[in-house]
């Protein structure tokens, strides 16, 4: 019988090393961004870089610490994880999308009128 369990000292060390490198890299990029006065990397790409590094680290830990990739065949754990991930994306991205849009479309006049209706305005 084939037991597919790759958890070993080596996988934990690799997971730890990679996570450490990714964390320090993210920290270094953020620090560099502050040191150069928000010039490099620019404000626009900063979120993208940090998001990428975080997602890479997520997969590193899922593979090396949680051993999700070496799960044996009916991959129920993986299936539940994918479901949770989809729900998570819908909730987070959906909320940000809708609320930022709402924020963007609300004019200062509308905001003032709203505040006036609440407590006599500013």
């Amino acid at each position, binding site marked *: 019988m084939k037991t597919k369990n790759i958890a070993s000292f080596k996988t*934990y060390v690799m997971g*730890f090393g990679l996570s450490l490198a990714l*964390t320090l890299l993210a920290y270094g990029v953020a620090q560099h961004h502050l040191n150069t006065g928000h010039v490099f990397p620019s404000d626009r790409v*900063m979120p993208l870089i940090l998001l990428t590094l975080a997602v890479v680290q997520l997969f590193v830990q*899922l593979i090396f*610490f949680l051993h999700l990739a070496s799960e044996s065949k009916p991959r129920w754990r993986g299936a539940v994880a994918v479901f*949770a991930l989809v729900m*998570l994306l819908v909730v987070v991205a959906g909320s940000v999308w809708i609320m930022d849009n709402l924020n963007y479309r609300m004019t200062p006049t509308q905001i003032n009128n709203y505040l006036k209706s609440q407590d006599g305005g500013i």
Partner: protein
Amino acid sequence: MNQMSKRELALPAAEPEDKTVFGFWVYIMTDCLLFASLFATFAVLRFSYSDGPSGAEIFSLPFVLAETLLLLSSSFTMGLALLANRAKLKNQVLLWLGVTFILGAMFLGLELHEFSHLAHEGNSWRRSGFLSAFFTLVGTHGAHITSDLIWMLVMASRIWHQGLNGVGTKRLTMLALFWHFLDIIWIFIFTFVYLLGVTG
């Protein structure tokens, strides 16, 4: 017939363990959705400073990096505890559980220090929407860490008294799953709340 009953007898011995761990995994994924809603709340309120401070004014990056490294190291030592358990080395399991506990407790200590410092400066959760969302998200993570630390103590005393066995292995596996999960949540708190809060 004989074949059938043999197979039926063979099944229960192997499966309950996997089922329990799988059930716990499902719980963890549900917990993930709880954090998703808190992350969404934080994302929506991230600029709602009112007259309070922004993230750049109140967060210290080196401090948060220290917290992150502590938690990451503890995730690693938790893995070593699992490996020691597989090798049936009781004292090593206890040693690595102890190291994990100490690292986790240091992380919690730093977090509580940050919270009390913020509250002391007048920047508690009552100051602005941003701070409310911040305290709820990071505080919920801290509450999870606290409960896992208590679980770790119970686990260690159980191993101390009863030694290593099958049930213990199953419980230790779930404890480790939970701990790794909390570390993963922290990666995203570190990235979105702190790094982006300071730079963005």
